[in-house]
Every structure is written in structure tokens, then in C-alpha cells.
């Protein structure tokens, strides 16, 4: 995924797994990371003496500041997200529907305490929403679904899904397989309960923004 991020992009990496993407970004890509608690130009996780309790990311983990960073308050920070200024955000998910509905904030289980944070703002606001997840649940069910059974985070917002078995484009036209990892399109189709289309061989890199 890291290599699919265009040079010069402004990117928000969600809490958890997506944060790891930063380890694969190269200096030449000149990516600027946003953290919704009020910063552009976030650097890697802080270690040892670098740790500063006033400098944390959205996951409340101490981070560092890169040259050219800037700080702003919460309304200004979410204005960046909600105003459509982020090129990409990368999020985890419970489920993604064929048309790009995202479910990643709430299991909906009775008694579960709901918590949403900035997930809905990222899902709705970023130009491209990339999801990172395993294709299957522990029970073997596809997380790419006809329509989400978990409470949704945003309608039709996901543009790409990166999984262990393949990379998918989602949107108004349904699901297109862009890349497979160690399996065929037919094998994927057996796992996923929605019709899959194969991407045309050319122009794949341009299909991110529907």
C-alpha cells in the first residue's frame, strides 16, 4: 500500500494496523502525516528521551515532530479532514460493502459501549479512503459483503481495500479486483459473496479516485 500513495500526499493513518504503513513510506515520497488531535508533519513514534506528553498521536502514543510541522486546535484539525483536504486516509474495518460502505466503529453487540472518535469524519472527509484488513474473519466469513451487517461508519466512502489475499476497488460500480496475492480471481470469488470484476490490465494506478 505504501507505494500506492502518490508523492506529496497528505495522509491520515488510523489507529492500530494502519499506523504501520508509515514504516514503509520513503523520504522521496515526501508524504505529510496528519493526526486529528492537531498536527501536520507528524514524525515516527517517540522513543526514550524524545517522549513528550504534549506530543501524541490520535492513538495517544507519543510521537515526534518533523521539520515543517504545524499545530492547530481540534476544530481546525477536523476542518482539514471534513473539508476534503486529506488525499488519503487509511482505516481498519469490520466490513466493507460492495459499494464502499464502511463499518469499523461499533460491533452493535448488546451491552457494548459505543465509541466513535474521528472515524466518521475520516471516512466522510478524505478524498480517498483506503481500508486495511484481513479478507476473512476468524470464522472464515468474508469482510467484503453485499451490505454491512455491523453499524456503518460512512456511506459509499471506501475506494480501496487492501487485504492479505488481494487489493480491491469499491464504489458505485461494485468491486473490482486490482491485484491478487497467491490466489486466482476464481478462488477469491468463491470466498466473497459479491460479484468481482477483474481490473483492466492498464491504468490501474489511476482508479483510486472514483
Amino acid at each position, binding site marked *: 500500500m505504501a507505494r500506492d500513495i502518490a508523492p506529496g500526499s497528505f495522509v491520515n493513518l488510523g489507529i492500530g494496523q494502519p499506523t504501520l504503513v508509515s514504516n514503509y513510506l520513503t523520504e522521496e515520497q515526501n508524504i505529510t502525516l496528519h493526526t486529528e488531535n492537531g498536527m501536520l508533519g507528524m514524525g515516527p513514534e517517540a522513543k526514550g528521551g524524545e517522549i513528550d506528553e504534549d506530543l501524541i498521536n490520535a492513538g495517544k502514543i507519543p510521537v515526534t515532530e518533523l521539520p515543517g510541522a504545524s499545530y492547530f486546535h481540534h476544530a481546525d484539525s477536523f476542518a482539514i479532514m471534513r473539508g476534503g483536504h486529506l488525499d488519503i486516509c487509511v482505516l481498519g474495518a469490520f466490513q466493507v460493502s460492495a459499494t464502499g460502505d464502511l463499518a469499523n466503529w461499533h460491533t452493535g453487540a448488546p*451491552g457494548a*459501549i459505543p465509541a466513535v472518535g474521528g472515524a466518521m469524519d475520516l471516512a466522510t472527509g478524505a478524498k480517498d479512503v483506503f481500508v486495511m484488513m484481513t479478507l476473512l474473519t476468524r470464522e472464515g466469513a468474508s469482510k467484503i459483503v453485499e451490505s454491512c451487517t455491523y*453499524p456503518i461508519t460512512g456511506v459509499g466512502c471506501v475506494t480501496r481495500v487492501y487485504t492479505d489475499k488481494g487489493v480491491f476497488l469499491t464504489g458505485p460500480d461494485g468491486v473490482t479486483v486490482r491485484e491478487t496475492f497467491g490466489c486466482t480471481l476464481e478462488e477469491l470469488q468463491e470466498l466473497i459473496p459479491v460479484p468481482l470484476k477483474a481490473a483492466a490490465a492498464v491504468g490501474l494506478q489511476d482508479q483510486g479516485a472514483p
Partner: protein
Amino acid sequence: MLHFVDSVQEAVVGIKDGSTVMIGGFGNAGQPFELIDALLECGAKDLTVVNNNAGQGDQGLALLIKEGRVRKMICSFPRQSDSWHFDAKYKAGEIELELVPQGNLAERIRAAGAGIGGFFTPTGYGTMLAEGKETRIIDGRGQVFETPIHADVALIKALKADGKGNLVYRKTARNFGPIMAAAAKHTIAQVTEIVPVGGLDPENVVTPGIYVNTIVTVAGSGQSSSTAGKVA
């Protein structure tokens, strides 16, 4: 009118039962711990508290919740690994929760300070959190009507204040401070240092003194005093 007081106890003395209290901070950054402790001590109850979270561990807001002073939380992310006091009260039905997407929380607080009566936003459209809310399609996008969140009091933490009440913050500890200061009728700021009038560059003031009512110095109160010199 701006008042400089000598103690956090004095700073919170006017907070009444039933007040809506905004508390700054995201994680530990920018949390006005000493003011929250003073609020606990002063005994005010039936509070509606606005914060991004619903308390962590056994300190600050978590204790206020544990002691039953909070009738309602307005927040975006109550559930954390160490939010046991909120979890217990919530499961016992002893605390009300208004769950708000974080950006709507920030924008609703900003709207209160800016005199906006309400606004439409795409965030939350089509989700559980928009149920029962007015919606409309604007420029082809579904949008939800959200209303301002006003408060009686804001408790915030800043790095420095000058004699006019102008504030500057430090790194990501800025978070909710500036918008809560504007949204509350009465804003109480704890700061690490008070500098004379003229001691802050007018270009770099983040919260103008018009938004600040009470200031108290809390020595070394976070906003890492050890590294604060770098910021001035």
C-alpha cells in the same frame, strides 16, 4: 472581567450543581488535572461534562464520574482500556451518554463560540448517530443537522498567559482549549507561567484574552515545563 487567582480551589468556586462543564485535553495532553481535582473537591454535582473521552484510570475526570458527580457525558470516545469508572456507571444506568463523532464535537463547540445556530455536515449521515436528526441532501451529499454545544464553564490548560489573558499552548496539548474557551460563558485556564502584558507576540496568540475569565498558575502542570523554553 479577567481575574488572576492564587489557587485552583479559588478558580472553581463559582461552579454550580447542574452546570455544563467543558474540560479540555486529549489523552493527558492538555488535561487540566489540577482544575478537575479542585472541581471534585468543591462538590459540584449533576454536571454535564463535555470532553473527548470519559475519563481514564483513577484520576481526573474518571474520579469525578466514579464519585457520581456527572449526570451526563458528551464525548466521542468513552470506551478505553482504562475507562472502568465510566463503564461501570454506564452499565448500571447511572450516567447518560451523548456520543458525538469527534469532528462534530469540535465543530459544535466551535459553533457555540462563533454564534452559529446550527449547521449541516456529511459526517454521520446514514449512520446510527444520525438517527432522529434532521437531514437533507446538499450538492448531492447527505448531510445531518447539528447544533452548538454551549457550556457554563470551561476548564482548560495552556502553556502561558499574559496579563490580558491571552493564551498560548504547547504542541498537541492545544487540542480543545481554544474552542472550549470560546464556547463557555466562563473560562478557567490553568497555565504554567504568567508573563507580563506585552510578553506574548500578538501574531502568535492562540486564544485572545476576551475568551478567558479566570487564570491560575499551576507550577510545572504538564505542558512539559522542562521543555517549555523551546516554545517561547
